[in-house]
């Protein structure tokens, strides 16, 4: 999964679920769009759906400090990479 694919998917989720249209990559979503903790939980569930895997508690906690689109993409990229490594090991 490339960074571009992740970004495309995240942008689609932000638009569909939170009506956040075309956010700047480094804009603080909480300040600019009122993205709250409930939205963060929803986003987590969408990420789980997108990756097709359940996140661990530690991974979920890490996500709760995310503020920008770029950070979301980094986070999903890190998860995808981690999952891929795990699959290869297995």
């Amino acid at each position, binding site marked *: 999964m490339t960074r571009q694919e992740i970004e495309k998917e995240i942008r689609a989720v932000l638009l569909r*679920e939170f009506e956040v249209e075309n956010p700047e990559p480094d804009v603080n979503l909480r300040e600019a769009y009122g993205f*709250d*903790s*409930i939205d*963060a*939980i*929803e986003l*987590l*569930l969408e990420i789980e759906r997108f990756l097709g895997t359940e996140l661990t*508690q530690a991974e*979920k*906690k*890490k996500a*709760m*400090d995310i503020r920008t689109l770029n950070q979301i993409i980094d986070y999903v990229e890190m998860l995808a990479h981690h999952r891929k490594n795990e699959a290869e090991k297995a």
Partner: protein
Amino acid sequence: MFLTRFFRRVINFCLTLGLWVYFMLGYLVLMFVLFIPCYSRLKAVDAVLQKSFHLHLKVFFALVNRLSPGVRFAVSEDVRNLRSSIIVCNHLSYLDPILLVSLFPRQTTIVKNTFFSVPIFGWFLRKAGYVPSSPTEMYGPAMINHLEDIKRQLAAGGNLFVFPEGTRGRRGRIAPFNRGVFSIARYCSTGVKMVLIRNTERLFRPGSFSFDTRGKFTVSMELIGSLTPDQLKNASISASADQARSLFERKIREAKTGGDGRA
């Protein structure tokens, strides 16, 4: 007429005083005589506290019932039997949360943060596994801890009850619903049960701080609908919140037009 009203107020005042004295003393006995001496030996502190609160409030409402001959409590069996459920209720009176605690041996809820800052009482609330509603507690990694804790309690047969209006409704109107509980339900892969409460505001009127023990009415709790995990998964949380709120509004409207005076 004046004398009748006067005596009614005096009776209500005396019975209210007696009930609150029992209420407070019951908690003090539970906490300081039973709970604290056994604290170090307890394995599941939250479960013990929840069951103690439940038994204490069960007796409290049995007393309320006994002292209010004209007041009938009608809680449907399907509400009594709810387990491992997220329950969404309308909010009419301060009695609503304690009435729900009296129904379920294992229960948790989201409590206003101010209660957690009350010395000793706040500590007990935390130990009982109740969740503070403050933004600092419901933001960041702490929120995941609370959600996982709720998940664990649901798996153990407990219920989470929430008043999504956030505050007591006024004049039979349902205030806009907070989306939080629907998001919690999705996170926990659990459905939402909707329970309509009626007439608790007549038994304990907002602003009066007095029980109306002489009134004639029925306090009821009825399961009016539910949202399954799949329904929650396939709709946005705003849509789920709107759907639940519409159902409450419709049921309240039906009760009013039904002319049973119970809305």
